[in-house]
């Protein structure tokens, strides 16, 4: 069964009583283990699609299935709980909690899931080891470079054992070398552990490494 199935999704916004269609007739299936980039110019609907896949927004029409759950039907705490247990998020500006150490940032999501302290410490350490930052467990985000912070964000996203990771422009704030290192690491996670990655990106390096590229233009999938 596909990890994600998007069926005839349309998303419109009413801005100052003007109807703006962000996504039209989107049909998309993503299988487990894919390394997919969603590309397109600004305003093409990449972030809107990512928000819908992540359960942060609801489609105006159409259906979205993640695993065996129809996400578009979930509301309130069920939806929040679903995001907590099934979806990993990586943001453009890392969004780590500055007062927590790298390890605690990774632990945070497991704490929200109710994982016991000793277990989550062990998992957080192994995840930081996986992203090459085990020795920075106690470092605060301000003591890490941008690339390192984004690696911690990836570890945090993995901590919830999600069905897939949604990464919104993950390399946009990184220099060339850091971006390259991050992509290598993600590719490794995808290859070795079968982690499904879905990126929204402008970055050609991400597109070059992606196994599949979904091209969006004016809210319509032009190429998949």
């Amino acid at each position, binding site marked *: 069964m596909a990890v994600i199935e998007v069926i005839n999704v349309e998303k419109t916004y009413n801005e100052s009583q003007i109807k703006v269609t962000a996504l039209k007739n989107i049909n998309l299936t993503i299988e487990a283990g894919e390394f997919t980039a969603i590309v397109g110019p600004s305003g093409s609907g990449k972030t809107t699609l990512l*928000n819908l896949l992540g359960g*942060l927004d609801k489609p105006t029409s159409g259906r979205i299935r993640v695993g065996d759950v129809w996400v578009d039907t979930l509301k309130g705490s069920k939806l*929040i709980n679903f*995001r907590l247990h099934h979806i990993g*998020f990586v943001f453009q500006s890392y969004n780590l909690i*500055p007062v927590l150490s790298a390890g*605690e940032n990774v632990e945070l999501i497991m704490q929200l899931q109710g994982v016991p302290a000793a277990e989550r410490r062990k998992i957080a350490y192994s995840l930081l080891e996986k992203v090459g930052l085990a020795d920075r467990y106690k470092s605060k985000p301000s003591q890490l470079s941008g690339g390192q912070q984004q690696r911690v964000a990836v570890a945090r996203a993995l901590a919830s054992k999600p069905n897939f990771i949604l990464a919104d422009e993950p390399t946009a704030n990184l220099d060339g070398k850091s971006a390259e290192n991050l992509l290598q690491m993600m590719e490794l996670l995808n290859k070795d552990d079968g982690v499904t990655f879905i990126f929204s990106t402008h970055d050609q390096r991400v597109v070059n490494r992606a196994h599949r590229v979904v091209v969006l233009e004016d809210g319509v999938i032009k190429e998949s």
Partner: protein
Amino acid sequence: MLISLSWRNIWRNKTRSMIVVAAIAVGLFGGVMAVGILNGWINQRVHDSIYNEIAHVQIHNPEYLLNEETNLYINNTNEILAVTDTMKDVKGVSARIRLFCMAQSDRATTGMVVMGINPTEEEKVSQIYRKIIAGEYVDTTHQIPSIVIGSKAAEVLKLINYRITTEKMDTLLEQKLPEQIVDSVKLLIDKSYRKKSALLKDIKSILSKSNFQKYADRLASVFSEYRLNKSLVLTIQSSNGELHYQLFKVRGIYQTSNSQFDAANAFVDRSVLAKMAGLKPNQVHQVAIICNDMDKAQSVSNELAKLFPTVSVRSWKQTSPEIALYAQFGDFMGLIYVVIILFALAFGIINTMMMSVLERIKELGMLMAIGMNKVKVFIMIMLESVMLSLTGGVVGMGLSAVILAILGHTGIDFSAWSEGFAALGFSSVVYPSIGIIDYIEITVLVVLTGIISSLWPARRALKLNPIEALREE
């Protein structure tokens, strides 16, 4: 981790949080000090009322309370005393003859209440024997019977002279009066006065207005000399309605914190007064009881009332409802101060928390996006507010506890207003005190303030849409 996260969030902006903590600490310090001083005054007033004036329980002939006549004595004193002697909660009992009299000295006359007491019994009930400032307590061995009067009565009866001597200058220095004041009053050495007003007039002419207000009463007190062993004639109405008089020698002067009491109450040997009033040894007007514990007063009173239905038995709360009111509402009034202070501080906390939330909109959006539910977001912000309040509270209360511990020993001297305080029955030196219950109550109020102050900022956070919040720059 939520607790740890909240705690760390507070200190993201150290300066801002420290300002709020300091504001809470200073506000609570003021509040706790006010509560402590209020408690100190009330405790002193209640204590002095009970141990100098009204005791825990009073027994009277019910008719005596309506019309304080000499012949309205308690009929069954012996039975009552036999029972009180066996009651485990009773610490001391004093049977008193209590009469209105006219007191006449060589210079003045005044009306007062004379209490006929057995000094040994009375010492277990009243602390007047510890309040003697000149002479001695009631002594039953003199041929001409002794009378002990209050300092205010001595003033009214003109049994005080004011004499300024070189030795008294040393006393002033011992009492730590400024040398400048002592030097000024040295001009009056070897002068003596029969009236306080004359002394004060001279003091006023040599001191500045502020120094006069501050030190005049203390100077007068040091310069005063009680005219002990002077005669005082008491005239009373005996039990058969006739007027009787008796010569006493003023052999002791007492001074309590209540100048009205001091002006109106004198103590003599009970057997002398009984003879004078035509009463038998067991015919007394009042049986005053002190219990082992203040809280036992009501149960002892109830028990005695049940056993002796023909007499009036009243606990201190019934004898002196205004004192009971002080005791009851003292804490309440103190808490009102604290509530008002915390109410004002809450606005500062709300402001800080609101700024803290607005600065973290993106972060809160991220937390909501990854799966932190609204309850946890609310708890996190509430914990931040409560911790911020509690930190200020602990600092403020800790500081107050230290200062109160010191002032509880040294006292705070309000001597400049001593006459006013004494007229109301309060000591001019207050020993602030605050109980553990007060600290617990204040802590609860601080926590409540923190919770209430978090509501608005938390509501703002809960209304965030994660998508919009994540877009914030």
